[in-house]
Structure formats: C-alpha cells, structure tokens
C-alpha cells in the first residue's frame, strides 16, 4: 500500500480519440459555404468592376449608390447619354483625385460590411474556411482569430456603423432627388428602386449588432431606461433578421447600380410614371 496525495482532478492532456476522417458529417455541409462563396465573389467582382468604370453611374435623376456621396470633382465625368441632361452634384475633394470617386465612396459601406458580425461569420466560413462548417476540420495550421493585426481592427465596426448612418443620410437624399425633375416632379422605376435601396440600407445599419449595443445593450439596468429598453427591443427584433437584411440589401445595391447603368448607356428606356 503506497501513500500519495494528489489533486482531485489533475488536468490531463492525453491524446484524442484516433479518428482519421476530417469530418464524419453525412449531410450536404458543403452546400452553404459554397453558395455564399459564389455569391460574395460575384458581388465583389461586380462592384469592383462597376466602381472602377468611373462612368455610366448617373441617369437623370438617378445616381448609383456605389458613387454616392459623390466626393471628387471628377464626378462631373459622366458620359453624356441620351437621357442625361445635367451632371450630378460636383464633389468637394477637387481634381487631384484621379481615379473613380466610387473608390472613396465605398470605403464606409465596404468597411461596415467587412467588419459586420454577420459577414465575418459568412466569409470566415465560406472564403477563409475557419471553419467551413461546424464539426469540419479547418485546413490552417495556426489560428489566432481576431487577437492581432489586421483582424483586431474588426473591433472598429461601430466606427463604420456611425459613419454609415451619414452615408445612409446621403443615400436617402439621393432617393428624394430621384423624385425631382427640372421644373417639377418625377416618379419612375428608378425612384422606387432607389427608395427601396435607402430603406434596406437603413434596416441593415439599424439591425446591426453594434447598433443594438449602443442603443441599449450596453446598459446594466434596462429598468432605469425605459425608452432605450424599448428601442433595444425593436433593434433586437430587427437584429434577428440581420443576416437576411444584410444579403438582400447587398444584392439590391448591386441591382440598383446595374439598373442605373443600363439606363445610362441606353440599353433600357427610363420609364417615368409622371
């Protein structure tokens, strides 16, 4: 009989069960990440092309959201299509900015979506494969998550959220402008598209996790802040559909640009109801 005193539950680091397969899932787990990867690549590809074009983003009275707010003075650089009567507002930045102004305009919405908690989940899974699906081994040898540069910058999400509210203001103004015509009012397919676009972007921003936190999530006592508690409830409801809103608003932005672009180059007419 030997005497030994040990701790009750010594932490052990033995080997794991020797199971060679990277996953034993039998369902079609590849479907979702693949579908998202295709969608994101299509979207990024289209936006990159459209933003680089630096043309055909205005068809009176509609301005593509990819180019709004139109900051550089080369915003005047619009191909004079058959429908175009006057160029959009001239920007503030001046003539030194040589490439497409969309590249400036897209910093904020791009930053917002890149640091968005939903998109992070989606692209970490679909593009970065960390992990591709639950219970599927990821291919990377090391993993440090969001603890160091550059991914630690994901913590700036709320900064983009606040700036995006300003952008939403501008896009709302664009939607309002889409109802105006020199000397009167306008109502066309484009007005509806732009209005919906602005609405979706508001919903996307307001349903975001940072918004939910700022509006009320950070409080310790809801009972002392009834108004913020109520607002938090509203945002929390919206937040449950954050993913759907994120995807719909993203696709809608691209479609809005596409519509204006097609009108601008004259591929389709620009119907006005009045």
């Amino acid at each position, binding site marked *: 009989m030997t005497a030994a005193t040990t701790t009750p*539950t*010594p*932490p*052990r*680091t*033995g*080997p*794991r*069960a*020797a*199971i060679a397969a990277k*996953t*034993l*899932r*039998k*369902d079609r787990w590849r479907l979702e990440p693949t579908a998202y990867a295709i969608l994101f690549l299509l979207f990024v590809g289209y936006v990159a092309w459209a933003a680089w074009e630096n043309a055909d983003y205005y068809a009176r009275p509609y301005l593509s959201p990819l180019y709004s707010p139109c900051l550089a003075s080369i915003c005047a650089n619009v191909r004079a299509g058959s429908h175009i009567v006057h160029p959009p507002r001239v920007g503030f930045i001046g003539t030194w900015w040589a490439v497409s102004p969309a590249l400036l305009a897209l910093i904020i919405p791009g930053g917002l979506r890149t640091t968005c*908690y939903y998109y*992070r*989940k989606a692209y*970490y*899974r679909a593009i970065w494969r*960390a*992990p591709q699906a*639950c*219970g599927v*081994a*990821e291919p*990377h040898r*090391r*993993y*440090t*998550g*969001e*603890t160091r540069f550059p*991914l*630690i910058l994901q*913590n*700036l*999400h*709320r*900064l983009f959220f*606040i700036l995006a509210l300003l952008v939403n203001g501008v896009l709302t103004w664009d939607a309002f402008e889409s109802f105006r015509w020199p000397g009167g009012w306008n109502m066309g397919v484009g007005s509806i598209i732009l209005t919906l676009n602005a609405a979706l972007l508001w919903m996307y921003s307001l349903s975001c*996790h*940072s918004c939910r*936190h700022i509006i009320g*999530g*950070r*409080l*310790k*006592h*809801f*009972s*002392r*802040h009834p108004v913020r*508690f109520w607002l938090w409830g509203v945002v929390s409801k919206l*937040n*449950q559909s954050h993913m759907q809103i994120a995807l719909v608003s993203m696709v809608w932005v691209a479609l809005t640009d596409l519509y204006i672009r097609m009108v601008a180059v004259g591929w389709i007419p620009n119907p006005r109801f009045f």
Partner: protein
Amino acid sequence: MSYDLTLNIWRGDANGGDFAEYVVPAEEGQVVLDAVHRAQATMANDLAVRWNCKAGKCGSCSAEINGRPRLMCMTRLSSLPQGEPVTITPLRTFPIIRDLVTDVSFNYERAKQVPAFTPTAEQPQAPFTMHQVDVQRSQEFRKCIECWLCQNVCHVIRDHEENKEHYAGPRFFIRYAELDMHPNDALDRKEFVQDVQGLGYCNITKCCTEVCPESIKITDNAIIALKERVVDAKYDPVVRFFRRRRPRSASSE
C-alpha cells in the same frame, strides 16, 4: 413497431481504437441513447458511455452523431436518415478516456478561473431589488446545462490544441456575459475576458449557437454583446476621447 438499427460506435482509448458495429432492435419514439443502452446491455457490457438524466437536463451524454455534436438523449432516431447506419463518436476536442467518454476537465479548470459574482456596494446583502427586465438576459445564459458541446465544436480549440492555453471557449463567454449583465454585480471582467480568457480568438462563426441543445443564442446575445462591451472598455476611439476628459468607467451609465 420494431426494426433493426445499425450503430457504428467508436471504441478504444488513448492507445487507439476503431469503429465497432452493433445491430440492435429499435422502436418508435426512441432516441440514440436508447439504442446505445441496448447495445450496452445485450452485446457490450463494458461499452463506456457517460449519461445521467436522459431528459436533456444534465448535459452528460454529449457525443458526435453522424459527425454532429449532439446530446444522445435528445436525438430521436426518427430525425436521422432512415435505413442508414448511425455513426457515434466521442467528443473530438477532448482527450479520450474510453469509447464514448472523454476527459472534459479542461472546462472545469476554466471554471475555476472565473472571478465570482460580487455584489455592488449599493446592495451588498440579499434580498436584492432586481427587476425582471434586468435579470432576463443573464437568465438566458444560466439555462446552460454544461454539456460542453459548444466547447467541443469550437474550431479554435477543436482544430488547434495549442489554443487551449489561451482560450476559455463559448460556455465561459456566456458566463462572463451573464456576470457582466447581472444587475447587481460590481466586478469588471472585460479586460480579463479579452486578454486572459481569449475572447479575441472567437471569430463568431456561430457553431456554438448551432449545437446548443438549450437554444441559447450564444453568439448574438453573449459573445457579440461581450465583444462590444470589450470595445467600450478597450478599443472605442470615441469613448476613449471622452474618457480622457471625464474619467469614469465605460460601463457605468
């Protein structure tokens, strides 16, 4: 109505192992744990399996069923593809003890590191006056039955053993969120959870939420909320600016 069900159960220990096949009679309304018990009682008396309540309340019978982390007692046979064998393996993230039983002491060690609930100076002694709206966020996290499925599925440690040193895992993030949202808790654990417990390793890919048998919205309601609170304390440029002018805690109202 009884039918024959084929189970492929991983059997072995730290020295290795392999799948063993058992064909057991199964009945309508049964769960995976029933079938495993049947195999144990009639064909493999020494089949190691951890279980307790068989009612989804204790969180003991965690395993991976057809590659997905589940509670065996809450997985109905009818929810699995019919006519196909059912594969059952132990939790992958933790050291194997035997058959379906793993050594989950990692989690109990992490539990010891949580700075305990500490009442505020305003209400140091129970009974506390606390309102339902103020306790219900934390109550959601206290539904946790500690089945460790979220810990097991989280790729941060599932695929990277070396991260176990730096990372507490989803179960403990909901614990820290619970304490941070407790209406009468005085401690600030935000820097601790970020710097020592590894909150930053989480890349919010939501597998923890996907496997939670209690349907706790781990990611949306706890981890993201906690990340945002950490931003308040550590990263927010606006808050930092104001804090320098008017020194006070970021979490106070």
